[in-house]
């Protein structure tokens, strides 16, 4: 019987978001009041695992772990210069601006006051750190999920994982899963839809009819066009969604976790349910 829930992850789990409707983690807390949420926007697994390593020896059959496995290249740099309250957010800036696809700090980051200060002191050292731990970063998620799996065997706790990306592709950039769904059972579960795709698939295909008329016989062309339009929607969206999801999919996420715990069917994410919110003069195709 589950008594405690611990949540780790990034903005998909961040509890500080504006709370205008029930959230998946809020509903978990309603059911299990002893719920702790360590989700932090912009955080990578390296940040999450700092906490998990401390929690691991105490876990047992009464624990449910919910993990959003975000991008391993989000390095949690050692930052002495930042005030402690800002340390994560600042780190988030650094992560996003100096780490390029090859996991090496870029020479072309934008300057910001706090960031400048950190960079002037640490940029060479940060590069050296990433050169030293390059492979540990690229393959980081595969070791992390392996540890979660062995933890579920040894501690007998239940572990539920959402991945940002499930398959390796140009965009996955260290976020993909090695295990995928191959070892799912009563103790361990990796959801078979990636959060990035689920989030993107929420956008309605409002221009579908238009696309169908233009490219009726070209199946690949139709798919490509819909993806282009969806990407354009995402780019201009003011994105008022809490944790990148509409309320409907927060409900689905809650049911996914509880479905795993209760041994019930685990529902799929809803698609085509969100139109987005846009500034009038910027964009709209439909």
């Amino acid at each position: 019987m589950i008594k405690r829930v611990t949540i780790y992850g990034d903005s998909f789990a961040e509890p500080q978001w504006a709370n205008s409707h029930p959230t998946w983690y809020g509903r978990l807390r309603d059911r299990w009041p002893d719920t702790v949420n360590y989700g932090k926007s912009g955080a990578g697994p390296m940040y999450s695992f700092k906490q998990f390593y401390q929690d691991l020896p105490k876990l047992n059959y009464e624990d449910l772990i919910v993990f959003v496995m975000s991008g391993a290249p989000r390095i949690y740099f050692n930052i002495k210069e930042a005030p402690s309250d800002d340390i994560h957010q600042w780190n988030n800036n650094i992560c996003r601006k100096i780490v390029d696809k090859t996991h090496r700090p870029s020479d072309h980051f934008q300057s910001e006051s706090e960031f400048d200060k950190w960079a002037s002191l640490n940029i060479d050292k940060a590069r050296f750190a990433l050169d030293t731990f390059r492979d540990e970063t690229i393959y980081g998620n595969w070791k992390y999920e392996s540890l979660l799996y062995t933890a579920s065997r040894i501690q007998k706790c239940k572990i539920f994982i959402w991945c940002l990306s499930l398959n390796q592709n140009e965009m996955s950039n260290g976020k993909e899963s090695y295990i995928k769904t191959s070892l799912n059972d009563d103790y361990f579960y990796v959801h078979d839809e990636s959060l990035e795709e689920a989030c993107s698939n929420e956008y309605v295909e409002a221009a579908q009819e238009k696309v169908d008329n233009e490219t009726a016989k070209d199946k690949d062309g139709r798919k490509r066009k819909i993806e282009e339009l969806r990407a354009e929607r995402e780019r201009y969206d003011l994105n008022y969604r809490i944790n990148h999801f509409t309320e409907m999919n927060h409900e689905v996420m809650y049911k996914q976790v509880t479905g795993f715990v209760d041994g019930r069917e685990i529902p799929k994410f809803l698609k085509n349910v969100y139109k987005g919110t846009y500034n009038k003069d910027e964009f709209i195709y439909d």
Partner: protein
Amino acid sequence: MIDIYGDSFADPAVTIAGKPIGYGGFRPWHERLGKVRNFAKSSTGPHYSLRELYKCYKKYTKDDHIIFIISGHNRIHFHVPEEFKQKDSICPEDAMWDPVIQRITLYKEHRKKPQEKQKWYDKHNQHMDYACRTFQEEIDTLTEKCESFLYMISRLQQCKVTVFLLSTARSYMKDRLNDDLFYLHNYGLMTASNEEFINFKQNRYPKWELRANHLSKENHDIMTDIIQTRTFKPFKKNFVDSTPFEQVEERFIYD
């Protein structure tokens, strides 16, 4: 195919003064297993061995067997910049994080420190320090993650995996998940090596290593047996006279 990863306990090229050591009259365990690819390298830790494993692990199948020695988690394979790469004298693991003084120090060897290594250290020790501070928790948990990843490879690739540790103190799994595919030997190789000496606890550490891969023939036999049967068998203890090894140093040096 049998692939071996690890440090000096498996290194096929362990030498002293250019000569293979301890190979008098017997073949070491890693040469008795048939056709193997041996990636083991003295002085290295799981940080280095995992880099080698990452290149191969997705190709393993049910016909393969991985033998992995998880050595010291704090042996970091630090980045060596281009300007120093041609210098053979640099072993990146020689720079080590000292948890007591909380900084990077250069490994103290019996021989004189090569000049290039010292230059590399002088120029980059603050970078190493920063890298260790940034990745501190990741380094501290490298053993746990390494054994878990090896266990996962045995599940997904369906290959055999045999794991030894220098010390089992940091092992998370120990032998709790051993089965037909995965075997973790729950007894440290460093302990086994030390305990070969007669009255080891009283005599403490000898100065020089004269044994192939830190083990005598008797324990090479046992090591081979463990790998082939994948069942627990204790190492032989208390049978090596340490006198020839010169008992003058406080620390036993594992290269």
